[in-house]
């Protein structure tokens, strides 16, 4: 069951060279406050597992870590949105392990679910084969990929109750539910911490047994404003 901690206490759980999963998709559903804290504390040589790099243009969400050169290795599906990371990759200072997006999330699910490998036809006949093992099952060719786990997963939900049950909303669920199953330590950043019972049994997206620590993030109002500014600046709203 989960323990509610302060951001300073989050610091006791993190360290240089750790393998860390960070939830979110281009910043949406990302644990923005913990990321800010990680940038501030300058943890170095991270192996960062996140489905895609930062919000287009870089410098937002996990883009703060790449801008700071804190990442030694990135495991994900796409980096094209983050100029800093692309540059570091091209210069050879950051290693990148590219996965087809479905393979990426399925590898994490396998890690969390105790499955031995992901067997998929995706990537057959492409360079992806170089990172995989070609196998045949039931008469068809596939690629086999290893399960993926991390020391720490930092996920983001809208609400947590005091047992650590998490409630998600909209498309900000993305990788969070799966990452919460696949790390030794799971930290959940949330908009709001509520009493036990305020999240109905079928609305629990991640049961509290997976969550070790809960930390207060931006409130829902703050996040709405933050994304309002971001999307406005990038001309993404309907006029």
């Amino acid at each position, binding site marked *: 069951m989960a323990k509610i901690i302060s951001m300073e206490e989050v610091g006791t759980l993190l360290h240089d060279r750790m393998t860390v999963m960070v939830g979110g998709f*281009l910043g949406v*559903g990302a644990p923005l406050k913990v990321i800010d804290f990680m940038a501030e504390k300058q943890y170095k040589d991270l192996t960062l597992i996140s489905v895609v790099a930062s919000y287009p243009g870089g410098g937002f969400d996990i883009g703060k870590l790449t801008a700071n050169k804190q990442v030694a290795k990135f495991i994900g599906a796409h980096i094209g949105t983050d100029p800093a990371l692309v540059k570091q990759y091209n210069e050879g200072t950051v290693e990148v392990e590219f996965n087809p*997006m479905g393979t990426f999330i399925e590898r994490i699910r396998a890690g969390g679910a105790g499955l031995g490998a992901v067997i998929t036809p995706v990537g057959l006949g492409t360079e992806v084969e170089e990172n995989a093992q070609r196998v045949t099952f039931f008469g068809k060719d596939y690629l086999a990929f290893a399960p993926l786990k991390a020391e720490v997963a930092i996920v983001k939900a809208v609400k947590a109750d005091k047992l650590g049950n998490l409630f998600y909303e909209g498309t900000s669920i993305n990788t969070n539910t799966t990452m919460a199953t696949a790390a030794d330590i799971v930290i959940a950043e949330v908009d709001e911490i509520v009493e036990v019972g305020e999240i109905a049994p079928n609305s629990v997206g991640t049961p509290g047994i997976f969550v070790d620590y809960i930390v207060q993030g931006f409130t829902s109002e703050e996040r709405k404003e933050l994304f309002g500014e971001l999307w406005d600046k990038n001309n993404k709203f309907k006029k």
Partner: protein
Amino acid sequence: MNQREIIARRIAQEFENGAVINLGFGMPTMAANYIPEGIEVVLQTENGGLMFGGAPKKGEHSADMANAGGEPITMPKGSSAFDLAFSFCIIRGGHVDATVLGALEVDENGNIANWKIPGKFVPGMGGGMDLLVGAKKVVAALAHTDKEGNSKVLKSCTLPLSAAGVVKRIITDIAVFDVAADGLVLVERAPGVSVEEITAKTEAAFTVSPEIKEMVL
């Protein structure tokens, strides 16, 4: 009408009523603006949504509703949101009826390259490879030639492949090809473009369908 608009308008005619469609960035996404009246499609966004709607006005947005481009979307009545693992069950399990993706190159064998120019452009494959293998019908959209006039519809792709032998239809600014078992078949030509011009601008071999039509844009 510019090249991109021609392609986007032609893509929009690929959609069947009720079909589940995933559109790649750029021209495929533009195509959503040209869907013929009477055709309703179910759009999927690979980060985890079905039947989503267009951008909201500022203030009406939710920080928890965005598409795979990180852009704000709306979730109208009937839409659904779910996690990435389930989203790729939809994609890889054959539950997407059609995907339209931009391409750098395509070839006679239905191969497609759209994720990497070694040493120059290496953004990663994102969800593209999954869509190419999982969608029931793959449509590749691209300019017929590069800026130097070289064909991008090739005998054999030169760039790293995104998937092998998956493309069923190729839409360019001057032509539409079907990818058949024995090679490409030219099924449409853009208004004012002759078969001869297409032949001149195409490296790939192709046959001409006896029912070749002019694109209706």
